């Protein structure tokens, strides 16, 4: 009888952010579908109420079904039977409940039987499910591959595939190969067009494919013979009903064990092209990855939530030296910081989701009609912000969830090292988040240009101007001091015009920007709801020491010091 939505009032706080008004208005095209579909909202309040009610269903399924199954799924795991994946029994139960509840195709248009929800409530659902079982969320969350079909495929393909996703078929994105991990330009899976069969055939091997045996897969393959780089790659849709792909093995992993990570063999697998030839990596994978990164950020925040709650419950219950261990400063400091990191990363998650919502929806509207000049500017503004924020939210929230999982185990002491407590599984599940869909190091590569172009600084200046509760002025003063330190550090690094030196300090600079941004987001949260006051205080203290540490490092570190770090 647990509801992971209702028992966490922070979620509703983020769901009801003022910017939702604009998001809903755009997403519902001024509620034009209200007479066409019996489940379409009639106005803003109606839409918001529907998100709330549907998230309540997600919370109930997560608390009552997914969470209680998590331990068994972790032990049982999926297996390969006759070249196909058989999920763990708990996974099947989870998936069946979410499908019956109509929680597939959440963001897809209603004409494809989707719910036409914005990204914000979808991400919130992923946040909630991840708290229950971070491994399971991958199988369910891969439905956002459908967004790529919705964005780039032709209408005939959309009407064939998307209703199937809404009806509960699962998806996969087949990108990685043994020799193409972070460097996807090296993808070799061969796509050849058969004049005889009038279709494409795929041949080769893919590795580390999450839910690789899903019903509908997006496959990155080399369609241009003789090419060796990203420009020879196209995106294909593979339908499992057509056959041709077998699962050779499922990886034995450290964590997220319920999520089948497959090695796939393609043997003349029939496939159809999605979008334009040669745009596979350059355009579609980038879109796919940005969606997936937001998904991993949501997963990370859900894991952070689970880690924090496990740690808190144990610290209150465990008594040593005659009192509950939460009463010791060493323990309560850990918990306060865990909550602050959780709150900070969650605020960044929903801020980024809102940016993505506005620009993506305007982009879809631009296919329907010509945008007004101010709408075009709005789209560009939010696209820039989404591009800038997506790598930091993926990078930071995944690092924070690892830190929180570590501290959760630490609070449990010896018991946390045993399989008897959930924190042990959470600790293992957390580890992948800072690796897949681009490592933290690669997120920094994506983020650094927003440091050098000043995008982060500009947005920080915008946050500075926002009205806040006067009681929080002292925190804002601290943040402006941090911003000066950040600006100074960036000038020093960028002025060298030495790319190696810039790359060397990139993570420090991106982290400084991220800490300041999250600090401001928490000020905004604390202004809207006093319950965030504590986290705003704790996080600002933490951010201040982190920013000063990085500033100090950069200030005293010159180009010639790089030599001490280079490999010999």
């Amino acid at each position, binding site marked *: 009888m647990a509801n992971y939505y209702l028992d966490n009032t922070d979620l509703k706080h983020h769901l009801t952010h003022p910017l939702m008004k604009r998001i809903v208005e755009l997403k519902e095209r001024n509620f034009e579908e209200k007479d066409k579909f019996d489940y379409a909202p009639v106005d803003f309040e109606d839409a918001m109420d529907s998100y709330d009610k549907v998230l309540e269903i997600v919370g109930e399924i997560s608390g009552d079904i997914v969470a209680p199954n998590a331990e068994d799924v972790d032990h049982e795991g999926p297996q390969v039977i006759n070249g196909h994946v058989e999920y763990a029994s708990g996974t099947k139960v989870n998936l069946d409940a979410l499908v019956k509840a109509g929680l597939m195709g959440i963001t897809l248009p209603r004409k494809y039987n989707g*719910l036409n929800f914005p990204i914000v409530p979808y991400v919130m659902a992923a946040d909630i499910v991840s708290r229950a079982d971070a491994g399971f969320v991958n199988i369910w969350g891969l439905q956002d591959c459908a967004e790529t079909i919705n964005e780039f495929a032709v209408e005939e393909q959309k009407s064939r595939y998307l209703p199937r996703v809404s009806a509960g078929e699962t998806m996969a994105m087949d990108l990685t190969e043994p020799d193409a991990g972070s460097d996807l330009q090296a993808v070799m899976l061969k796509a050849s067009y058969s004049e005889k069969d009038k279709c494409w055939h795929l041949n080769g091997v893919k590795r580390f494919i999450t839910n690789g045996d899903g019903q509908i897969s997006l496959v990155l393959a080399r369609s241009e013979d003789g090419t060796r780089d990203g420009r020879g790659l196209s995106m294909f849709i593979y339908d499992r009903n057509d056959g041709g792909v077998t699962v050779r093995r499922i990886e034995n992993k450290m964590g997220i064990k319920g999520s089948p990570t497959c090695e796939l063999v393609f043997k003349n697998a029939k496939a159809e092209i999605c979008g334009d030839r040669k745009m596979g990596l350059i355009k579609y994978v980038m879109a796919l990855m940005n969606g997936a990164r937001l998904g991993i950020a949501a997963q990370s925040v859900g894991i952070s939530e689970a880690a924090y709650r496990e740690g808190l419950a144990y610290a209150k219950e465990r008594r040593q030296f005659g009192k509950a261990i939460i009463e010791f400063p060493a323990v309560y400091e850990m918990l306060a910081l865990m909550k602050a990191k959780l709150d900070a990363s969650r605020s960044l998650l929903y801020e980024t989701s809102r940016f993505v919502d506005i620009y993506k929806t305007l982009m879809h509207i631009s296919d329907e009609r010509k945008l007004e000049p101010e709408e075009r500017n709005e789209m560009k503004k939010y696209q820039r912000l989404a591009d800038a924020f997506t790598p930091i939210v993926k990078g930071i929230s995944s690092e924070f969830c690892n830190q929180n999982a570590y501290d959760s185990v630490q609070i449990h002491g010896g018991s946390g090292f045993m399989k008897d407590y959930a924190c042990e599984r959470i600790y293992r599940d957390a580890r992948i988040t800072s690796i897949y869909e681009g490592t933290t190091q690669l997120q920094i590569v994506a983020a650094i240009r927003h440091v050098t172009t000043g995008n982060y600084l500009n947005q920080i200046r915008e946050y500075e101007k926002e009205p806040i509760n006067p009681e929080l002025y002292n925190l804002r003063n601290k943040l402006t001091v941090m911003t000066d330190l950040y600006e100074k550090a960036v000038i020093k690094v960028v002025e060298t015009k030495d790319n190696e030196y810039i790359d060397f300090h990139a993570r420090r600079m991106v982290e400084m920007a991220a800490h300041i941004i999250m600090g401001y987001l928490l000020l905004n949260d604390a202004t809207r709801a006093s319950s965030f006051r504590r986290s705003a205080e704790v996080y600002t203290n933490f951010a201040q020491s982190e920013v000063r540490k990085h500033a100090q490092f950069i200030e005293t570190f010159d180009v010639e010091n790089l030599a001490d770090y280079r490999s010999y």
Partner: protein
Amino acid sequence: MSLNIIVLAKQVPDTRNVGKDAMKADGTVNRAALAAIFNPEDLNALEQALRLKDKHPGSKVTVLTMGPGRAAEIIREGLYRGADGGYLLTDRAFAGADTLATSYALACAIRKIEQVDIIICGRQAIDGDTAQVGPQVAEKLGFPQITYAEEIIEVNNGKIIVKRRLERGIEVVEGSLPMVVTVNGTAPDCRPRNAKLIQKYKYAKTVTEKQEESEDYTALFDARPYLNLTEWSVNDVDCDVKKVGLAGSPTKVKKIENVVFQVKESKTISGSDFDVEELIKELIANHTIG
């Protein structure tokens, strides 16, 4: 073949999550302190009905409930999960009914519904634990009944095959339609509320609920007639007023006693074979087991 299925459901106080103020000083249930929920075994019954509908497209599942105005929530909960409609039997005259008066009222209502094939309800409600209403409804309608059902295996050519869960095992029985089936809590849990259906039906209201709200729903209900939930009074279902509610209830509460378990009633035994054997003998002798 499509079926006409009625699910009998009751709104009950959530006696599984009892707080300290759950009972009043006079020993009666403090309903205000307990959340009103869908009786758990009635949810198992609803799931059986919905599964029949999945197997027999074109079938219709109707939720019938008796209670105060707020029991309309039971019909909405049914609609959110896949029921096609519902009726709320509500009237001051129905209040205070025991199982006899309740089954009479329900039977009258069912007679108003055309061509019923199967009536499914939970074995018993968690507030009264009588398990009498389902069987009594069957008797009043002259329908056969299958109790303690765990699974409706098949419905075909006017026959129904049901798996029953009994104290000492399971039993598979066959009967003819129309049939009343009462379902155990061991049957599969009810499916979750559905995201589209909750959006479709969340404004569904009875006439009384609409009158109580300040908002004007006329336009919305004209455009979406399926949002109107039907209320039936004593007159609507042609009940004899003397047979319903408190007046029609021969059950009279004579006295309510608070049973408080005392620690001194406990007994500690060692784990030795002898002690365990003695305990078993004692429990058999006083009919606690066996």
